[in-house]
C-alpha cells in the first residue's frame, strides 16, 4: 500500500521514468551508461549537499549556507594543497572539521537563541562566502599526485560508462542517508521535530542535541560536497557555487519532501537530483536550447510539486473528515 505521504515520491519517480523514456525515444544514446555515468559525476557535489539539505528540511528548517560553505571548502583545500603543499587528505580532514563545526554553531544558535534557521543560515551564507574571499579571490588550480590517483579511480560499466570516485561518494552518501533517516533513532527524531516540535519535546525527544546534529550533518556534507567539487573542477574558486543551496532545496522538494517538515524521503531527493541532471543532459543533447531552460523546467516542476503536495494534504484531510463523520 502506498501511504499518502509517499505519494509525492512515487509521483516524482513516475515523472522521472516517463521523462527519461521520452528522452530516450528522441535520443536513444541517452540510455547509454556513458550518459548515466556522466550525469552522476556532474551532479555528485549537488547530490551530497542535497542529502544534508533533506535532513534540514525534514526537521522543518532550512540551510542557506550550503553554496557558500562549498565555495569556502574548495578554496580552502585548493590553497592548502596548492600554495602550502599540505597533503590533500590532511586538507580534506581540516575542511570537514571546519564545516562541521560551522554547522554545529548554526544549529546551536537556532536552538538556544531561538533565531529562525532562515536568518541564522543567511548570516552563515555571508560569513562563509566572505571567508572564502579572505582565503583567496583567485581561481586556485590544484594539482597533486594523490588527487590524480583519486580522479583516475573508476569502475567501468559495460558500454563504456564510468562510475567515478566522485559518483561513488555521492551514492554512498545517499545510501547512508537513507539508512540514517529510516533506521536510526536520530532519523526518527528528525521526523518528529519536523512534525511538531512541541509534541516532540513533550514526548522526550532531545530537541537541542538533534537540532545541532542536523545542522552539523548539513555542514559536514556541504564540506564533503566542497571537496568533491574541488576534485571535479581541479580548482578552488571563491565565486563558485553561488545559489547551489537553492538547487539543493529544489531537488529536495521535487523529491517529495514537505517544506514544512516531517514528511519526505532521502531517496526522493536522489530522484530530484537525477531529474535535474536529466533536464541538463537533454539540453546538451538537443544542442539548440539554451541552458536557462533548465531553470524554467525546474521552476515549473517546483510549482507542480507544491500544488501536488497541497492537494494531497487537502484530500487526505477531507477523507479523514468523511470517515470520522461516518463513524458518528
Amino acid at each position, binding site marked *: 500500500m502506498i*501511504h*499518502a*505521504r509517499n505519494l509525492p515520491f512515487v509521483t516524482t519517480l513516475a515523472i522521472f521514468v516517463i521523462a527519461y523514456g521520452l528522452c530516450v525515444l528522441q535520443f536513444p544514446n541517452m540510455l547509454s551508461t556513458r550518459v548515466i555515468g556522466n550525469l552522476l559525476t556532474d551532479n555528485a557535489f549537488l547530490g551530497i549537499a542535497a542529502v544534508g539539505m533533506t535532513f534540514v528540511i525534514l526537521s522543518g528548517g532550512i540551510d542557506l549556507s550550503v553554496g557558500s560553505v562549498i565555495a569556502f571548502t574548495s578554496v580552502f583545500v585548493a590553497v592548502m594543497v596548492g600554495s602550502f603543499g599540505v597533503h590533500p587528505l590532511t586538507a580534506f580532514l581540516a575542511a570537514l572539521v571546519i564545516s562541521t563545526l560551522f554547522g554545529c554553531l548554526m544549529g546551536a544558535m537556532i536552538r538556544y537563541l531561538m533565531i529562525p534557521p532562515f536568518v541564522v543560515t543567511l548570516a552563515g551564507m555571508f560569513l562563509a562566502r566572505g571567508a572564502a574571499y579572505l582565503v583567496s579571490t583567485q581561481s586556485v588550480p590544484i594539482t597533486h599526485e594523490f588527487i590524480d590517483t583519486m580522479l583516475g579511480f573508476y569502475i567501468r560499466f559495460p558500454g563504456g560508462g564510468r562510475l567515478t570516485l566522485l559518483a561513488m561518494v555521492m551514492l554512498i552518501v545517499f545510501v547512508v542517508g537513507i*539508512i540514517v533517516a*529510516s*533506521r*536510526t*533513532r536520530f532519523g*526518527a*527524531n528528525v*521526523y*518528529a521535530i*519536523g*512534525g*511538531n516540535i*512541541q*509534541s*516532540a*519535546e*513533550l*514526548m*522526550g*525527544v*532531545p530537541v537541542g542535541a538533534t537540532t545541532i546534529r542536523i545542522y552539523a550533518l548539513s555542514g559536514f556534507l556541504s564540506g564533503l560536497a566542497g571537496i568533491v567539487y574541488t576534485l571535479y573542477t581541479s580548482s578552488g574558486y571563491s565565486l563558485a557555487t553561488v545559489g547551489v543551496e537553492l538547487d539543493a532545496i529544489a531537488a529536495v522538494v521535487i523529491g517529495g519532501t514537505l517544506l514544512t517538515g*516531517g*514528511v519526505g524521503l532521502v531517496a526522493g531527493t536522489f530522484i530530484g537530483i537525477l531529474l535535474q541532471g536529466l533536464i541538463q543532459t537533454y539540453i546538451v543533447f538537443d544542442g539548440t536550447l539554451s541552458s536557462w531552460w533548465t531553470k524554467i523546467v525546474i521552476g515549473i516542476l517546483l510549482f507542480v510539486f507544491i500544488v501536488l503536495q497541497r492537494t494531497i494534504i487537502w484530500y*487526505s484531510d477531507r477523507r*479523514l473528515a468523511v*470517515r*470520522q463523520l461516518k*463513524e*458518528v
Partner: protein
Amino acid sequence: MSASHALLEARGIGKSFFGISALEDVDFTLERGEIHALLGENGAGKSTLIKILTGVYRRDRGTIYLEGSEVSPDDVAAAQALGIGTVYQEVNLLENLTVAENLFLGRQPRRFGMIDRRSMRDRSKALLARYGLDIDVDALLSSYSVAIRQIIAIARAVDLSGKVLVLDEPTASLDANEVKGLFTVLRQLREDGVGIVIITHFLDQVYEIADRVTVLRNGRLVGSRAISELPRLDLISMMLGRELQHITRDHQAEPETIDDRGAPSIQFQNYGKKGSVAPFDLDIRPGEVVGIAGLLGSGRSETAFLLFGIDRADSGTATIDGKDVSIASPEAAIANRFGFCPEERKTDGIVGDLSVADNIVLALQARRGWMRPISSAQKRELADSFIKSLDIRPADRERPIKFLSGGNQQKAILARWLVTEPRLLILDEPTRGIDIGAHAEILKMIERLCSEGMSLVVISSELEELTAVAHRVIVLSDRRHVAELSGRQLTTDGIIRAIAGTGETEAA
C-alpha cells in the same frame, strides 16, 4: 521504597514567572492505584503543577518524592525515565508518523544499531491489544480519530513510565461513548496499581471516575479530599471560593424587581448557537451590570463570543432600542457600539509591541476605518486623558504595552473601548492575573461606568466579584443558561447552588 510511602508526593511547591507567582506552597500526594482529579479554574495553577511534576518546568521551591525518595526531573525524558508519563490534551503525539513510530519514539527496538521495524510493529500490536485496540500500526496517526489517538497516547505513556500517568483534559474532545471507553481503560490501569492524575472540568466525570480530588485556586492549595466524602456543593465552593465577603453593592436594599431601571435597551431573544451555547434570552438595561457565572467550560466565554459576534448565532434575534440588528461579526458589534475585553489579555487583547497610546486608539481607528486616520495630536490627547483618568502607570503613552503590569494592561484595554463610547461593554474575566490594588480599582471603574449609563456584561469565575458589581447574575451550566439571580437571591451561595443544581439533576 517501602509500601508505606505514597507513590508521588510533592511538598511546598512554588513557581513564579517573571516575578508573578503561579504556584505557592502547594502540596500534592498521589497513592498507588488511585485516580486523583486535579481541579481549579483557569489560572489556578493546575497546568503549572503538572508541568513541574513532569519535568517541563523547573520548580523554584519545594521537594518531590517518588516512592519515598527525592527526585528532581529536569526534563520530560528524565520524568519519563523515573516513571512519570503524561498525556496532554492537544499537543500530543505526531500526526506525520505511524502509530508504531509514535508508540516507540525515542526507545525503538534495535538490532545491530538499526531500528528493528518488524519487532516494533509486533510490539505495538501487542501493546495496543491490551487496550482492546486492533488497528493497523503502520498507518499514519493522522488517519485515526481523536479517541483512538488518546488511547495510543495513554498506551505509550504507561508503557514508557508505568508508575504515574498524568492526563490533561483527556475527555475534552471525546463524545460520551468514547469517554466510557477511556474510563474503562483508566479503571483497568488503576487495578494494575498505576497512579493516575486527571485534570478535567467535567464534574460529573470527576464523580464517576476519581477517588480523590485536589483543588487549586489562584496558585494555592485549597484542599485535598476523598470524593466520597465531598458533596458537589462543597466541591464547587472549594473551586470558586467564597471566603472573601466584602460586598460593596447592597443587594438587600435593592428592589426584587429591576423594572424601575427602565426598559431594556438591548435584547437578545432565543439567541444561541449549536454546539456552543443553548438558546437564551438576555435583556440589558442602560446602566445595568449583568454578571455571568459558571464553571470553566460551562459556556461563559462562548456567551460573550455570541454577544460580540465572534461566533455567529444560528438562532434568535438581537434588538437594540426596539430595532432588529444583525451582529454577525465583531465589526457589526463595534458598529452597534459594543465593546469586548477578552479573557486572554496577552494573546487576544493587547498588541504587545505597540505603544500604550496605539493600543488605546486601536478600536476607535477600527471603527473609523483606515481611510480616516486619527491624527497624532488627537491620539496623544486621547491617550493622555485616559492614562490620567484610569491612572495607568507608568504614565508614559509611548511605552510598548508589553512592559506594563497586568493590571495596567487591562486598564489600557478598557480605555481602548471607552474611547469608542460603547453602549455595551463585555468584560471576560476583567480581574484575572491582576494584583489586589488594581482589582479594586477595576471594580470601582465598573461601578462608575454604569452610573454613567453604560451597560456592562461581566464574566467572572470570582463569585465575590460578581456579587459585588452585578445587578443581576446569569448562571450557566453545561452550556445552558440555567438561572437568573437578582436582589436578595444574589449571593455566592445562591450562585453555587444554581451551578450545582443542574449538575445533580443531570447526574441523577
